[in-house]
Every structure is written in structure tokens, then in C-alpha cells.
């Protein structure tokens, strides 16, 4: 009996491993920046380039840094949710306008609405590189001490918001 059960058990283990492997999205690369301090930067604000923004100003607050661009199609999918979050006022959202043109970005916000407290212009993607950005959208939840606690690669879905980001933000705000 065991003669037949052992290969069957091995096969079942293999199937489980392959099923997990196939279910994973290879484009979601775990970030080494989780639980590390958010890299510092100082960038011009999109709306008013004379003003600048630095994450250091956000000490003491739990906030979301959302990487977006006007050329990014998935950002459009994510946009209604961001607007909803901005209206609810649970977590302030700051934008990092990534590899974009200023006028395109402003046009995009005028057309679709602006969920961001402000957006910083990362036109040459230098800051994006420091954050390990390799596409848009990407979002970082940063805690009071300026530590990255969660990274969402790709659009934030209502599911991810409800089950991961919102509970974590509430816990960090406690």
C-alpha cells in the first residue's frame, strides 16, 4: 500500500508547490525597503514648482505616497478609489508624479480630479529609483517615524485597501 501512497504523496506536494507558483504574479517583486526608512528627497511641487516637498515634513503622520503618471493606464483604474479615500480623510495621499510632463500631469488631474494633498514632480525618476519604483502605479504606506510599512505594486484595488492598507493605517495611527 505504501508503495503506491509515497509517489502519490510526492505528486501531491509537487502539485501544491506548482499551484502556489502559478498563482503568484511575477511582476510583484518584494521590496527590500519594507520596514526601512523612506528615502529622503526634496522635489518641486507639481502645482507650484517654486515650492518643494520633502518626506521629512511628514514626521508624526501616517501617509500614503502614490506613484502616478498621466501616461499610466492602471493609474486611471486606481483613481476613483484614491478620490474616495481622499474624501474620507482616513489617510492623506501624496503623489509622486513619475516620468511625466508637467502640463500632461496637470491636465490629467484637472480632468479626473485631484486626490493628492500635493504631488511632487519626479520628472527624471531619480527619486523613483531610490524608492525602487519600476512602474506605475506603486504606493507606499509610511508610518509616523518615516518608515515604509507596506508597498502596493500596481493599482490599489478596493480589496487591498479594505483588507491590507486601511487596517494597517488604523493600527499605525493608534
Amino acid at each position, binding site marked *: 500500500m505504501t508503495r503506491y501512497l509515497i509517489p502519490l504523496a510526492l505528486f501531491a506536494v509537487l502539485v501544491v508547490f506548482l499551484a502556489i507558483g502559478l498563482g503568484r504574479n511575477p511582476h510583484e517583486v518584494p521590496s527590500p525597503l519594507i520596514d526601512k526608512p523612506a528615502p529622503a528627497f526634496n522635489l518641486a511641487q507639481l502645482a507650484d514648482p517654486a515650492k518643494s516637498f520633502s518626506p521629512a515634513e511628514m514626521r508624526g503622520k501616517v501617509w500614503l505616497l502614490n506613484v502616478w503618471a498621466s501616461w499610466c493606464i492602471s493609474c486611471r483604474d486606481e483613481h476613483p478609489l484614491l478620490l474616495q479615500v481622499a474624501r474620507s480623510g482616513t489617510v492623506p495621499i501624496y503623489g509622486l508624479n513619475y516620468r511625466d510632463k508637467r502640463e500632461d500631469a496637470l491636465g490629467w488631474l484637472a480632468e479626473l480630479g485631484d486626490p493628492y494633498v500635493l504631488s511632487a514632480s519626479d520628472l527624471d525618476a531619480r527619486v523613483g529609483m531610490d524608492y*525602487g519604483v519600476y512602474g506605475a502605479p506603486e504606493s507606499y504606506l509610511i508610518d509616523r517615524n518615516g518608515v515604509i510599512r507596506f508597498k502596493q505594486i500596481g493599482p490599489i484595488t478596493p480589496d487591498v485597501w479594505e483588507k491590507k492598507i486601511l487596517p494597517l493605517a488604523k493600527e499605525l495611527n493608534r
Partner: protein
Amino acid sequence: MQLRLLTTSFLFLVALGAASVAVARDAQPLADDPKLEERVMNISRELRCLVCQNETLADSRADLAVDLRNQIREQMKNGKSDEEVIAFVTARYGDFVLYRPPVRPTTYLLWFGPFILLFGGLIFLFRYVRRRRELIVDAPLTPGERRRAEELLGAGRNVPRPEFHVSSSDAQVEPLNRD
């Protein structure tokens, strides 16, 4: 009229000249320092482009890959070693960008798994063969069996080998010999 044509074509030529100068300046980093460029390309071949994951940083034409190559070039110009450059990239993008994963507790299974399987297989094979040998027991023939066997063997020796066996085997050998 002709004068105007002449001036326009002259201006056009000037513009063309300026354009070619601009192009020449664009290509300069390559000619600038071939040794540095070789280092940049060597390291880029070890790194994965995250946008198009099955391409190396050296092969990829994605914006991110271009930026990262420029970043690597810049750092090398500032005297950073290959290890420092790789540390810079992995600090941002993780070990996933390395085509040669580092040996760490999390990658032990990846590195040593095949050897564990190999040795496990060898041990299994050894034990299996030994068990098979133990299963074969020498069973001496009973006197009756021995007599029967001798009878059969003796009978075989007395009977002349049938003709067709010989000829058929000859027929098989012959064509080969001719070749």
C-alpha cells in the same frame, strides 16, 4: 528668387551640420572611456531589468534600464567598485535583480537542494540494491531436481543441432562479410 533659394539651402546645410554635431555629442559616452563602458556593460549583464523581467539591464531598452545604466556609469566614474554598485541596485530593487542569487539562508534550498536530491537518490539506490541482493536466497536443489536437471542438460547435448539453425545464422553473417 535664386538668391533666396541659395540662402535657404545654405541655412538647411548649416542646420544639417548642427544636427550631425548634436548626434555626435549624443554618442560620446561610448567613445569617452571604452574601459568604463565595458565595466558598465559587464555589470548590466548580471542584472535583471525589472520592467521586462526576462531581459538583462544591458539588453533592455526600457526607460528604467537606461536610467539605471546611466546611474551605474555615473557611480563608476565616481570611483565606486562593482560590489558597491551592485549593493546600490539591490538596496532598491532587491535580490531579484541578481541573475546569480547570493547564498543566504533563504536561498540555501535553491543552492543545495539539487545536491540533497542527488545524495538522497544515491542513498535510496544503494539501499534498494542491497535489499534486492538480500532477497535472492541460495536454494540448493533437491536430489530429485538435480537428476531432472542433469537429464535435461544431458538430453540437450546428445541431440545434434538442427541444420537450419546453422544455415540461418550463416545467412545472417554472410551479407555482413561481403560488406
